[in-house]
């Protein structure tokens, strides 16, 4: 804003010599800074790069030489990917393909359900005034940092046995443990506080006159929500969707607890990968491509939609 004024003021206060010195010092330090940043970036990328290279090297090379030797003896193959995706490899029956499907079937509803339910709640908290709504909002906000671990075991028991007072069932045993449904429900529950908080922050800033105009035109809360709030909130909904998708896709604790590692028809990719770490041991030609199969979809989502993802993160942390 005020950069326009700067050229007028600076020359008056600082003599030409000083100005030149400043420029020189700045260019020097910015070159040094760039060098440092480039070094750190390389350092940060090397581990992933090394594993990527390894996943593409022939089996015979991987165990007998470091991946950095590809620079002097380049030799690549896609065979490892073929093996881990479709047949399994060393001591392991079956490829990763079914687990990719499992992860998708867990993650997509695991993203959509909490989004829908949280968007509704966030709208009510932001735009339908009622007594105690502020208190409710802060309670939900505080719930955000209740560790998953605190609710894990009782929730598992609830799914398995329901709730009884004496012998009277108060809440039915859902019997969904080990199914996709248990993961959908659990991910929806644990996403609630953060999702409501993020969406509320955004929705609360929508223009008041638009809302009032809708009410004047006779739209009830349902119509206002569907026709006005949802479309206007799309940026924050997209941001949270990406955040939640990555969270569900990358989760280990919930899937391990509610499905376990042995159930191949439901277990998501992350659980499988953590199992393969034990099975493959130091067969890096198999473990490396397995890891990349598990992280490629999050990486695509991340690089394609980075802007929204960053926005979601910023809304979640700078504001709170």
């Amino acid at each position: 804003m005020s950069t326009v004024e700067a050229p007028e003021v600076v020359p008056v206060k600082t003599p030409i010599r000083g100005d030149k010195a400043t420029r020189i010092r700045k260019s020097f330090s910015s070159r040094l800074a760039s060098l440092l940043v480039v070094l750190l970036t390389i350092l940060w990328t090397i581990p992933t790069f090394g594993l990527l290279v390894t996943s593409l090297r022939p089996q015979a090379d991987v165990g007998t030489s470091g991946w950095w030797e590809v620079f002097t003896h380049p030799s690549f193959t896609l065979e490892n990917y073929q093996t881990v995706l479709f047949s399994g490899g060393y001591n392991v029956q079956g490829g990763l393909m079914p687990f990719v499907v499992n992860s998708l079937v867990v993650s997509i509803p695991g993203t959509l359900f909490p989004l829908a339910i949280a968007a509704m709640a966030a709208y009510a908290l932001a735009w339908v005034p009622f007594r105690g709504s502020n208190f409710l909002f802060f309670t939900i906000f505080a719930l955000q940092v209740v560790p998953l671990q605190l609710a894990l075991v009782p929730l598992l028991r609830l799914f398995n046995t329901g709730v009884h007072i004496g012998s009277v069932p108060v809440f039915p045993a859902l019997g969904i443990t080990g199914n996709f449904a248990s993961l959908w429900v659990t991910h929806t529950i644990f996403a609630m506080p953060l999702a409501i908080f993020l969406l509320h922050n955004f929705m609360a800033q929508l223009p008041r006159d638009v809302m009032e105009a809708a009410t004047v035109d006779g739209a009830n809360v349902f119509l206002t929500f569907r026709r006005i709030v949802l479309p206007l909130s799309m940026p924050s909904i997209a941001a949270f969707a990406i955040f939640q998708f990555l969270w569900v896709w990358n989760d280990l604790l919930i899937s391990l607890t509610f499905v376990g590692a042995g159930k191949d028809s439901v277990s998501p990719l992350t659980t499988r990968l953590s199992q393969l770490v034990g099975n493959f041991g130091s067969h890096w030609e198999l473990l490396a491509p397995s890891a990349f199969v598990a992280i490629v979809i999050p990486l695509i989502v991340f690089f394609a939609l980075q802007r929204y993802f960053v926005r979601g993160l910023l809304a979640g942390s700078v504001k709170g």
Partner: protein
Amino acid sequence: MSDLLSSTLAKLGQGGLAILVVFAVILIVFFAAGRATGRLSKPLGIVVFLGPAAVLMIVGLVIPAIRTFFYSFYGPVGTKYVGTDNYSWAFTNPGMRTVLINTVLWIILAPLVSTAFGLVLALLADRMGATSEKVTKSLIFMPMAISFVGASVIWKFVYQYVQPGQPQIGLLEQVALWLGWSNPPNWLLSAPLNTFLLIVIMIWVQTGFAMVVLSAAIKAIPGDVLEAAALDGASGFKMFTRVTIPMIRGTLVVVLTTIMIAVLKIFDIVRTMTGGNFKTSVLANEMYSQTFVQGDNGHGSALAVILFIGVVPLIIYNVRQLRKEHAVR
């Protein structure tokens, strides 16, 4: 192959059907509740909008959390009242002492180091050209998208140990040998070194987060503040300590506490790298092991409660921050 295809279709169908049903139910309820008019209309709207979320959170978070609190005073299967035995076990058992010390190490090191790296990167990248700044940030931020399990596999390869005479495949050992350390230890087996090596993974993941958030805060410092400071003769390091840091203090603390909360709950890294063996276990991993491996829900619940108590100061702090911000608005 046709097996794979049919099971794939069956699973996708299951997922698609679930999505259809949930959204159909929401729409039907909207339609039905939307017909109500007059005094009933608003309360009905509140119930429909807040009801599902409220039920989920009460049944799935609040009540289970309270039950865990009770379990922590009971024995392994939750039938025998044992008073505070589980807690005294948690604080006096020698194995548990290692777990607590490790957890403290994690909480201190991971947030501080990742925030420091993130801050330096945010400051320095700010001076680069737009394109190189973007590339740098993407690459450093990338680990945030990878699961902790994936990150663990990536770093397990870096830490892979092979006898020094053999051809090396792990980068860390190779670098150690190149630097003239002729007999490096088996990294992941030697305590306490292994805990630090696991913390490195967390730092690797969280630095990108710190960098992105801090970078946004730095860019949001008003230009006239910086100009005024420059006119008063502040430059370089002085500008950094006297102007930049005070201006982004709030964000810095939020980044620190956010990473702290994540670190307190860290489970996947320890589970995948060592399974908590070789003296690397931390609170959240030990909670899982006690509950599902040892089958002692009393111990596990006590650890979960301790974890919660560790998080409480952070909750209070964050709520206060939020209140302050609301007041300003």
